[in-house]
């Protein structure tokens, strides 16, 4: 069976989510093609061609795809769907936007957030904030799937697939891009970082996020995250939120500072390899999932931790 995977990128760099989704696609298909749709994005296609397990890269380079608007992207995927047994995308804000629209155009029920394919038509996915894993079998001829990329390792960059241009589909011209405001950060990206330092309401202010968490994250080369309570209180930007309705992360090391550990937060980080919790409340639910806990005042131990790491 052949599968077509929609690449996640910003017209310049291919995102790590794509390399992980390639591994997922190979779980159910024996031939994986990657679709790079964007504008002046040849470099992205070249990067995708290096991913091990990719048989072909298809490049749709047109201004209509510059901002990944869902209407032209879904139309493009629909025009390319014939011959593929599965159409996939990583479960990013682009993939989650485009793929259900495509599924409806193809009259297919989408599999959201696949974490495993146990057969080409049988999938596992988390429901109820990750408290339950359901196994479903799809009877649709074409499978439309979004991939929870934290469940997969990235395909190594050792391949050399051919790049083939594809014709742009007719743009439905229903929406237009007005602007964007993307956080510019030198730090690792939250969803793919090896280490995440995350703060909760106990930080008590935006200033304390800067004062306590940033030096620690800098020291560790970590991405910064936050609980919903901290974001709601205005201590951290929206796109730092880890949890059921925010980002899903599974780093090697997740350090939860001043986070109590509501189930909605745990849903976003409990697949991390090692979890450290620092909280002054010994009964906080975060300690039930933490490998290592420090019951302590964060104002004291976080600077101590940063200082100790600087010495080491």
């Amino acid at each position: 069976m052949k599968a077509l995977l929609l690449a996640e990128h910003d017209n310049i760099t291919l995102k790590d989510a794509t390399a992980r989704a390639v591994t997922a696609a190979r779980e159910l298909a024996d031939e994986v093609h990657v679709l790079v749709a964007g504008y002046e994005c040849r470099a992205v296609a070249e990067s995708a061609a290096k991913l091990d397990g990719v048989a072909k890269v298809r490049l749709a380079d047109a201004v209509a795809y510059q901002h990944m608007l869902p209407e032209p992207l879904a139309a493009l995927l629909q025009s390319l769907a014939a011959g593929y047994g599965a159409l996939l995308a990583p479960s990013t804000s682009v993939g989650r936007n485009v793929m259900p629209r495509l599924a409806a155009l193809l009259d297919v029920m989408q599999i959201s957030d696949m974490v495993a394919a146990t057969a080409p038509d049988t999938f596992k996915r988390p429901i109820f904030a990750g408290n339950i894993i359901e196994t479903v079998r799809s009877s649709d001829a074409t499978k439309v799937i979004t991939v929870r990329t934290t469940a997969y390792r990235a395909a190594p960059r050792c391949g050399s697939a051919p790049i083939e241009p594809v014709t742009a589909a007719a743009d439905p011209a229903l929406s237009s891009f007005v602007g964007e405001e993307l956080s510019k950060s030198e730090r690792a990206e939250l969803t793919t970082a090896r280490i995440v330092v995350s703060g909760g309401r106990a930080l008590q202010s935006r200033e304390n996020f800067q004062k306590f968490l940033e030096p620690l994250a800098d020291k560790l080369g970590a991405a910064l995250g936050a609980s919903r309570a901290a974001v709601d209180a205005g201590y951290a930007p929206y796109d730092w939120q880890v949890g059921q309705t925010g980002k899903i992360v599974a780093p090697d090391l997740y350090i939860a500072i001043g986070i109590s550990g509501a189930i909605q937060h745990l849903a976003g980080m409990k697949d991390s390899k090692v979890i450290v919790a620092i909280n002054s409340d010994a009964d906080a639910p975060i300690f039930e999932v933490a490998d290592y806990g420090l019951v302590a005042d964060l104002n004291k131990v976080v600077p101590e931790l940063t200082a100790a790491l600087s010495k080491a």
Partner: protein
Amino acid sequence: MKILVPVKRVVDFNAKVRVKPDGTGVELASVKMSINPFDEIAVEEAVRLKEKGKASEVVCVSIGAPQAEETLRTALAIGADRGILITGVAELEPLAVAKALKVVVQEEQAQLVILGKQAIDYDCDQTGQMLAGLLNWPQGTFASKVEVEPDAVLVTREVDGGHQTVRLKLPAIVTADLRLNQPRYLSLPNIMKAKKKPVAKKSLEALGIDVRPRLEILKMAEPPHRKAGVKLTSVAELIQKLKTEAGVLS
């Protein structure tokens, strides 16, 4: 402009869910049910647009069990004008829901549909996008700001890494993210008033659409539980454990 807001009755976000002993589904007996939190935000946004004079009527629709009427009453208490309750099949897949909503949108001649971005039970995040595809309407998903213009709607979307703003030609679909608004507190007089607002009842069958499931649920299971680890007493001990035992620091 008429706004349609679909609302779903789901397990309350605070309730603990359990898989039935035979692994065929989720134990729902005596579990607290509520309006899906994202749908509540969607209703609030529609009502605010009406209060600002941008909308003429806010119609809510729920598809599912007869008890979904309670969910509609919550939406009416927030300020929606009337409800539509479609019953027949308790659990529908998002594709079937989108097909049913398409019929309602066309019957009602709605110009804007605001939905919650996902239901917190099955976490699919599909229905709004599917409805947009079926209607060939533009979609503004994960909205944190909505502004209505004469022929368009300006939607600021929460995307990975920040915000994106798009202009959608009307008619359009918007899905609400967490920070679109803070739903109002329901006052007793409004709850009482909501009981008297009209709710039209329809059967799913009468819509004449194919709602057969495409996915067969083979099994439901709880994921392996993480065991609680150890509580340490000092930063030095933590660093030592991370380096030697866990091997995540070098």
